[in-house]
């Protein structure tokens, strides 16, 4: 039903995104309300961590979204390079700040969640350390966009960086996990153990859905901004030369 080639053309994409935006916003708000209600009122406190387990409902979705956004950036960069569509590069550029915000959120909520257990604000736990490194990868990506003034060169250079980054993330994750087991007994805190009790899993998934909805809404807004900024740049250049 959606002719993807037509969507690759920025103008028709804008018409499509302006139709989708209201629906995405409404769904996000509903999911967020449901998620908050479930997380704060319905989910039982954990027998071991008590009420602090509720922080998981913010921390875990943020960590998921941090990784998911980088995957979106890498995918958009790959399509941008292969099919030379500027819209993909702009999507990656629009997604980066969102990913960085989710990563920052994951770090802060991780520290808040760990504090009662470990007694300190920051613990070199494998997961938190990997998220911290991911944060640097985001900052590097955004900094490279700002550093190169020529748009086409910036788009392709950042695309290569995103692909190099996405190849390195599992390697970094593997080495940090190994490093963590070497220096510290397995951390007692189950950050997001697979065998979560359904009463905790449901709010988690709903919050995850809300965060994903939020990601789509902000991405569409930022993407439209990038497209307009790009068009303004082209127009300004054109006036300059005529």
């Amino acid at each position: 039903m959606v002719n993807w080639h037509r969507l690759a053309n920025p103008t028709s994409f804008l018409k499509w995104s302006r139709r989708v935006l209201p629906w995405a916003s409404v769904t996000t708000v509903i999911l967020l309300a449901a998620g908050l209600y479930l997380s704060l009122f319905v989910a039982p406190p954990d027998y071991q961590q008590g009420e602090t387990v509720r922080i998981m409902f913010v921390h875990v979705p943020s960590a998921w979204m941090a990784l998911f956004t980088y995957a979106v950036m890498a995918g958009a960069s790959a399509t941008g390079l292969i099919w030379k569509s500027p819209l993909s590069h702009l999507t990656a550029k629009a997604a980066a700040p969102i990913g960085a915000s989710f990563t920052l959120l994951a770090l802060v909520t991780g520290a808040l969640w760990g504090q009662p257990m470990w007694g300190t604000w920051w613990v070199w736990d494998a997961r938190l350390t990997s998220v911290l490194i991911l944060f640097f990868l985001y900052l590097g990506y955004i900094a490279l966009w700002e550093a190169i003034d020529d748009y086409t060169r910036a788009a392709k250079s950042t695309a290569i960086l995103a692909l190099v980054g996405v190849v390195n993330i599992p390697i970094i994750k593997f080495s940090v996990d190994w490093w963590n087991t070497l220096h510290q007994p397995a951390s007692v805190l189950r950050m997001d153990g697979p065998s979560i009790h359904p009463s905790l899993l449901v709010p988690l998934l709903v919050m995850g859905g809300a965060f994903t909805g939020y990601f789509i809404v902000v991405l569409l807004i930022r993407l439209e901004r990038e497209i307009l900024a790009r068009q303004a740049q082209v127009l300004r250049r054109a006036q300059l030369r005529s």
Partner: protein
Amino acid sequence: MTTFLQIVARDVRLAFRQGGATMLVVVFFVLAVALFPLGVGPETAVLRRIAPGVIWVAALLAAMLSLDRLFQVDFEDGSLDQLALAPLPLELVAAAKCLAHWLSTGLPLVVISPLLGVLLELNGEAHAALLLAMAAGTPALSLVGGIGAALTVSIRRGGVLLSLLVLPLYIPVLIFGTGAIDAAAMGLEGGAHLLVLAALLAAALPLAPWAIAGALRLNLE
């Protein structure tokens, strides 16, 4: 093949001839490591414990120092345009430049690292592991660092940005490089870590030149 060796030979000659690049990097490496006892205190037990990490972090930073000029000099004086016309694919030109960078920066660090082991009172058995780990890890630094250098080749004073892009990618080499020395220091067998370092290098060998060539082509436009 001669083209490949010609490029490596020229770059190494330039690094040693100008008397700059190589000596500066080695001196920085020794100086950076020598600062730690002054900061942390001369107790042997402490120094011995942090020696592998300190040496490796200093090695990363030393390699980083000479990276931003790896492609930028050739980009600015037009050599990159000519190298792109050589009968050697750009990927191999990139590999040659990284090899030259390792020979003029990484290798001197490997050669001097036992001296630093002594400086930080690393115990006997760990010296062999230190040499092996440095030898296995530093080439990957040049390859991965080359990607950052190629991405920032057209950016004025891109050195700081280069560090931000590349240091996170150095973390696996840092972890397993240090791990190899720690294992040997504790009398364990550090072989596994060296294997992982070799694996990282094996992965970087095809990937890095491909990414570097892609980044350089952008800047040739």
